[in-house]
């Protein structure tokens, strides 16, 4: 009997007809209608009360999807920062002396009260930031609540965090957060700080401060003691004043590497503890044995989630040469049916860019990409007439020296590079000053672990991308920052380790 060796059919682009409906049918609008319960004017939240800013000035918060004014926000300055820091310092002795069991109950309350008002917060977040309601409803708000709930449970278990050491709170913590995940970043910062008994002064991003001030209402409802959390809205310089304030024992910053370095310089010599969660230029690596349809979904989620305004976005696609053509053609087909537009519509996949300034920055990168010789492709799509919108964009023919392959764009722009061997993929993935995250798509478990070991990045997603969880530590290597947020590891950055038997 003759035995035939099975031969593997060469993989070639799918010949199945592509279903493209174009403008044939349109979706009916599916607007989210919950009331965001916005106030016309938001004051600062200091010492448990809403107070007007010392300078008496306010600035407008704009809905990036319509360019309409949403609310007026207090323009906090150095005097307000000082007042907030003094309120936090005054609250610290009693708050840190509370048994962990009781501190935890406040965090549980905050989580529960936020869950009660989840849809209202999701709508407010979408109006303020421009991200699709699908994301705020299913990701931002529930994950924010989950962070408070998770850290609540640690408050009376701190002796298990650092073997051989007692955890002591640091005092007043100054926190500055970005505009891409306003509520979620706030919870990543506040929940672990409070869990250990620290008090907080936080400055939300000037574009997106509304939900932080709405959450302050929840702090009041939860009966959180006055001064334990203070929210000071204002421009970047107000954040600078907060980081430099002498009462602040620890600073936690999430934002660009550029600003992170400025902050590091500004507090040099002050002995303040720091955590920095900075930029990224993550490689999303697709091997030829990967489940390609799944990988395409992962690529889309990696770079177009939150309009690509994600520090860990998979902004560099490294695709194995044998499947490069297939992946790019599948990706283009997928992008043609991605829905860009009104963030309040439940069917929208890609919403508005946060601000005109950010939109201009992204456009600048598109021009740089074309000027440097990469090939740009955008799906045909009708953008709303008003608001800051950008179609999903991919660049092929990108080389490692192109600016769009080196710099963090923070927008829905994907740079596609190819590789031939595992070593080349690792080399290219690590060829960056950043090191926040990476993605690996392959069917081989051993290759996943090899890649995970070699990639210089704080988070590696295997056959998935952009997954987050309060129990999962998040943070970068190299110029993507230091310190971790989430899990037992994140708590270590908010406390002082004291040896037993010593003061």
């Amino acid at each position: 009997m003759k035995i035939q060796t099975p031969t593997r059919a060469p993989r070639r682009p799918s010949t199945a007809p592509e279903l493209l409906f174009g403008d044939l049918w349109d979706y009916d609008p599916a607007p989210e209608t919950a009331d965001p319960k916005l106030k016309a004017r938001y004051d600062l939240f200091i010492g448990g009360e809403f107070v007007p800013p010392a300078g008496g000035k306010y600035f407008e918060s704009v809905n990036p999807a319509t360019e309409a004014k949403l609310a007026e926000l207090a323009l906090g300055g150095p005097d307000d920062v000082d007042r907030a820091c003094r309120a936090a310092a005054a609250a610290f002795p009693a708050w840190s002396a509370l048994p962990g069991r009781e501190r935890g109950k406040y965090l549980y309350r905050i989580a529960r009260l936020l869950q009660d008002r989840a849809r209202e917060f999701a709508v407010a977040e979408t109006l303020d930031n421009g991200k699709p309601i699908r994301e705020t409803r299913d990701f931002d708000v529930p994950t924010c609540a989950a962070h408070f709930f998770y850290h609540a449970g640690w408050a009376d278990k701190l002796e298990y965090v650092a073997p051989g050491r007692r955890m002591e709170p640091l005092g007043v913590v100054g926190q500055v957060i970005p505009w891409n995940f306003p509520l979620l970043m706030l919870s990543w910062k506040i929940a672990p700080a409070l869990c250990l008994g620290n008090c907080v002064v936080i400055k939300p991003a000037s574009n997106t401060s509304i939900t932080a001030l709405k959450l302050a209402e929840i702090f009041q409802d939860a009966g959180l003691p006055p001064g334990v959390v203070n929210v000071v809205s204002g421009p970047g310089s107000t954040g600078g004043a907060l980081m430099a304030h002498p009462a602040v024992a620890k600073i936690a910053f999430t934002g660009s590497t550029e600003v992170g370095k400025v902050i590091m310089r500004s507090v040099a010599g002050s002995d303040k503890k720091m955590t920095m969660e900075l930029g990224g230029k993550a490689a999303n690596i697709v091997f030829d044995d990967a489940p390609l349809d799944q990988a395409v979904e992962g690529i889309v989620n990696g770079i177009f989630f939150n309009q690509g305004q994600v520090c860990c976005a998979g902004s560099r696609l490294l695709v194995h040469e044998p499947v490069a053509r297939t992946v790019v053609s599948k990706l283009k087909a997928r992008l043609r049916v991605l829905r860009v537009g009104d963030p309040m519509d439940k069917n929208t996949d890609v919403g508005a860019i946060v601000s005109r300034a950010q939109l201009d920055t992204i456009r600048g990168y598109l021009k740089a990409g074309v000027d440097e010789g990469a090939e740009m492709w955008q799906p045909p799509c009708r953008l709303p007439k008003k608001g800051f919108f950008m179609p999903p964009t991919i660049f092929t023919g990108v080389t490692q020296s192109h600016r769009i392959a080196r710099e963090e764009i923070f927008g829905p722009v994907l740079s596609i590079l190819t590789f031939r061997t595992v070593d080349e993929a690792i080399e290219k993935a690590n060829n960056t000053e950043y090191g926040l995250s990476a993605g690996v798509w392959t069917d081989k478990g051993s290759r996943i672990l090899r890649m995970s070991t070699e990639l210089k990045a704080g988070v590696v997603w295997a056959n998935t991308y952009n997954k987050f969880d309060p129990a999962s530590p998040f943070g970068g290597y190299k110029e993507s920052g230091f310190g971790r947020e989430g899990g037992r590891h994140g708590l270590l950055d908010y406390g002082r380790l004291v040896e037993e038997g010593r003061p």
Partner: protein
Amino acid sequence: MSRLPITKTPKVYVGGAFIRSESGRTFPLNDAKGHFFANIPQCTRKDLRNAVEAAAKAGPGWAKRTPYNRGQILYRLGEMLEARAPEMAEAIALGGGKPADTALEVSCAVDRLIHYAGWADKFEQVLGSVNPVAAPYFNFTVTEPMGIVGVIAPAEAPLLGLVSLVAPAITGGNTVVALASEPQPYPAILLGEMLATSDLPGGVVNLLTGLRRELVPTFATHAHLRGLSAVAGPEERKAIALGAAESVKRTHLIKAEDKRDWLSGSAQSLYEIRAFLEFKTTWHPIGS
């Protein structure tokens, strides 16, 4: 007729070799009585950069050694130091210490190496974790070495201070470029000879002697040094923090004015190893 002894030319240990400074510069070292003892290499910024290159070459190999193997090598280093303890005590005594104190410093340095040798294959289990995420993923966090760590040793405790900073960094799989005590550099020269016979691959620990004011600024700014472990005064700490900001370098600074008691058990811990580790979290799907 009395025999004239052969004196040793002090050389620094870099990349597994004993070298003079590329500049050819030296500074004289006197003994406790003020008599000339030897000329010590006055290393330059170029020497520092060369040492970083050597540490970079040694890095991947050292990081890939099994933790068990790293532990045995650290233990072997302890053996080498123990065997030459009287000689090392004499080297420390050049700085004027009493015999009982210098002997104690040596024995404490040996014990410190043994302490970290034991940690090499244990810290991962204590510091890493499996994370219970609310989705079908096997999610785990492991430690990894940072890369090349700069060490700036204190002026006092010329052996024990240096060993207390170098040992935890290499236990974690990093490679090190260290600046020895400026007033008492000779124990570091001698330590280099012990490192060379301890099975530690060349380039894993590189020891420089020289002047702090010449070298600390380059330690602060060299972008390939991913971490910096230093005992430093207020002005130096500020300079280090400013330089570190340029490449988001991790710093672990001990205040020189706090006069750390290096003999104390508090000067060694798991958290000294942790200070120069990165944490990597991998999400792996469960199913199909």
